């Protein structure tokens, strides 16, 4: 699998992803990697309906995402991976998936989270996962769309 973008965005497939990122990355597939969404049949069914023209979308849990990554059938597939949180990214990385940079597009504010930028809110678990990803040398950059200037997540976490 050729990972053209790994993005954390809890809106998953929406305007910015469907129109901007799918184009600039030239991806063939959008794969939502999330245990909770994969177990929610309505959400996963709807996500499969909203793939931009010419792009396939799938929803898998983290375990299956690792299997798909290692499946020779998808060796040359250009994939855009979407996550709702950094802990899922960390689980993939720990299972041997080669991710060098993570784009953070949006993490919505909920009770118990605190806002670090306009579009990104985190809780303690998110912070811990981001720190571990950072310690593995993985770039963590905040950008809504590709023309935005990269803001390094670790800089705003301090």
């Amino acid at each position, binding site marked *: 699998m050729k990972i053209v973008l790994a993005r954390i965005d809890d809106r998953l497939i929406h*305007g910015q992803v469907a129109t901007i990122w799918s184009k600039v990355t030239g991806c063939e597939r959008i*794969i939502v990697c999330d245990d909770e969404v994969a177990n929610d049949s309505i959400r996963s069914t709807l996500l499969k*309906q909203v793939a931009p023209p010419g792009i*396939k979308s*799938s929803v*898998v849990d983290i375990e299956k995402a690792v299997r*798909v990554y290692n*499946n020779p*059938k998808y060796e040359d597939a250009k994939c855009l991976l979407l996550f709702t949180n950094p802990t899922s990214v960390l689980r993939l990385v720990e299972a041997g998936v080669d991710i060098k940079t993570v784009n953070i597009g949006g993490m919505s504010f909920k009770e118990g989270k605190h806002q670090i930028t306009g579009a990104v809110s985190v809780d303690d678990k998110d912070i811990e996962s981001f720190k571990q990803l950072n310690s593995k040398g993985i770039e963590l950059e905040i950008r809504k*769309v590709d023309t935005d200037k990269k803001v390094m997540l670790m800089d705003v976490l301090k």
Partner: protein
Amino acid sequence: MLAVLVGTHGYFATELIKSCEMICGATKNVKAITLVPGESPDDVVKKYEEAIGELDTEDGVIFLNDLFGGSPYNAACRLAIGHEDYGIVTGVNLPMLIEMVGLQMSGDVAAIKEVMEKARDAGNMGTQTFHTSDIKEDEEDDL
């Protein structure tokens, strides 16, 4: 750079650009032209001319209008006559505007007729339907 003018009845154009910016970020070289009650087509022509004066029109001007045959469209036609690098597309919607902003951001330069085709295709493709009976599983794919 291509200049994009969104010309509509009422504040649709202004709000459409705001909606577009939610997705694409801040726009450059895009202007809203509104026709509000009490204004005449001549006022719209004047607004277009002022906007064109303020924009970079190096790569042409595309007018995106809401209604074929409406006053914003008719006014755009008056300006487009005699200008080879001006083009008009009607039925403006968000996908069409996003396509034009995307084109500006990409830095690619296209002939105005090609730009018009891209706008029309994006506008058409943006109209899709969904009904619960449309749901089907792709059995060929293990993913």
